[in-house]
């Protein structure tokens, strides 16, 4: 599906979606250069582009983006591994589900960002604190989807596994996890989105002078009242999130190829 759309020639693509954004940017430019608006507050698109070019070519920027991505990835991996393990436990064992499930579902209701002050007291304004926060953000959706995926493995499949004389471990690795993998991947996808949100949140709310990052750049832009830097930061945050999503979607399609085109 996506391959056919990438193959269509440039002029055949649907450009109608760009009409409003282009109009908007044009209006913005005219308003800024004609002086209809306070140009301290509403910087013209050209100025934003200039600032963007300066920021991106400056030394620190690539470093900041890499630092954010590294944090994002570390938290995501930690959180999802823990999430898959915990979700599997809840899905396979009714005892665990009854014992721990209600607590999990209650703790889940605590808004994510409410943990930040506690984490900051326990771990300080360090990178460990940020990664832990990102991991917590990634943890919840993965637990939920893993749990759901495992629950939806059919009884018939279990019986086949029993006929084959699978051991417990084999049943987990050869049957349960593969059968639940579509849902687990959906959860991982969601976790990636949350992890990126949490990365920005962690850089806003757990700031420190030595920590580089895209969110940190935006915060510095705000305290310096640099609207152009803020807008560039927003664009970079959005584009990075978009790129991560696309990558995840590609990987997901690749990994689920065994399901066949019946879907």
């Amino acid at each position, binding site marked *: 599906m996506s391959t056919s759309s990438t193959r269509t020639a440039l002029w055949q693509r649907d450009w109608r979606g760009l009409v409003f954004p282009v109009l908007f940017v044009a209006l913005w430019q005219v308003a800024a250069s004609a002086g209809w608006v306070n140009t301290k507050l509403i910087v013209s698109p050209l100025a934003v582009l200039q600032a963007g070019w300066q920021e991106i070519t400056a030394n620190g920027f690539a470093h900041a983006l890499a630092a954010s991505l590294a944090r994002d990835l570390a938290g995501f991996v930690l959180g999802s591994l823990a999430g898959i393990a915990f979700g599997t436990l809840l899905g396979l064992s009714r005892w665990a589900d*009854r014992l721990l499930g209600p607590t999990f579902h*209650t703790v889940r209701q605590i808004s994510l960002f409410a943990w930040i002050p506690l984490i900051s*007291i326990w771990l300080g304004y360090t990178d460990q604190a940020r990664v832990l926060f990102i991991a917590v953000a990634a943890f919840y959706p993965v637990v939920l989807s893993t749990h759901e995926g495992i629950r939806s493995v059919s009884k018939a499949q279990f019986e086949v596994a029993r006929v084959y004389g699978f051991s417990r471990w084999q049943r987990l690795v050869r049957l349960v996890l593969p059968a639940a993998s579509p849902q687990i991947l959906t959860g991982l996808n969601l976790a990636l989105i949350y992890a990126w949100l949490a990365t920005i949140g962690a850089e806003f*709310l757990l700031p420190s002078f030595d920590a580089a990052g895209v969110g940190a750049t*935006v915060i510095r832009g705000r305290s310096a009242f640099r609207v152009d830097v803020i807008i560039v930061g*927003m664009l970079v945050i959005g584009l990075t999130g978009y790129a991560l999503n696309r990558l995840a979607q590609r990987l997901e399609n690749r990994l689920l190829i065994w399901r066949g085109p019946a879907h």
Partner: protein
Amino acid sequence: MLTQQPLLPLPTAPEPVAVRPARHWRLPRLPAAGRALIALMFPLALLGAWALATRYEWIAPQILPSPTTVLSALTELAQTGDLARNALVSFWRVVWGFGLGAALGLLLGVGFGLSSLLRDYVYPLFRAVAQVPVLGWLPFLILLLGMEEALKVVLVAKAVLVPVAINTDQGIRSVPPQYLEVARVYGFGRWQQLTRVILPAALPGIWNGIRYGLTNAWLALVAVELLASSEGLGFLIVYGRQLFQLDVVLAAVVIIGGVGFVLDKLLSVIEKRLLRWRREAF
């Protein structure tokens, strides 16, 4: 012999297949009270461990105050009226932001679902706006709107609008075309088609969006109150953190969790009501 090797060695026919009986790891059906008791065991154990750890000072009270301290902080906050005041501020912010965001999201979603024209022109822009997470907008909106109430309401509304619009759109587009054919046979007008066929059929999707939206609203609210507010439950946490009064922080966290819990329960009760007709089919 089979030409194709099976993935796993099949047990040969004459040998009696040893089918192990299903393990009885399943619990007997318990009455609700029994379930609640089991569910409470873990938190109670945790609470006990917490109380012991602080009692014998295994953990410094500056890092983890005892449960009783947190409880007294909670009662003090309640008695001075700080709690009610801040909770009310947060509550109204969520109500306004959620109302605004859900209404706009519903409109947009219905628009995208029904009009391919609107979809072709506006959807890409919408996706682009949705792509920047709420916190990404925050610094920009602070400059634009200042630190006033409008900032909180707009951010919460943005957090709600996106999932509501996306889910409404998907819900509407997955309405089977046969339904619309039947409606046309019955001579339904456009408005009737929308209110009697499309919206009810899309309701599960829309509801999904609303649930996500409310969770997001609460998330965004706490974030914005932590960063830019002088009242509200999020501010209470910041305040406690700045004074290093961890009992106040924990008390506020408990309240935030409690509100989230109540919201979730409330929604699932409404869901049971609202989608009752769907359940009956199964």
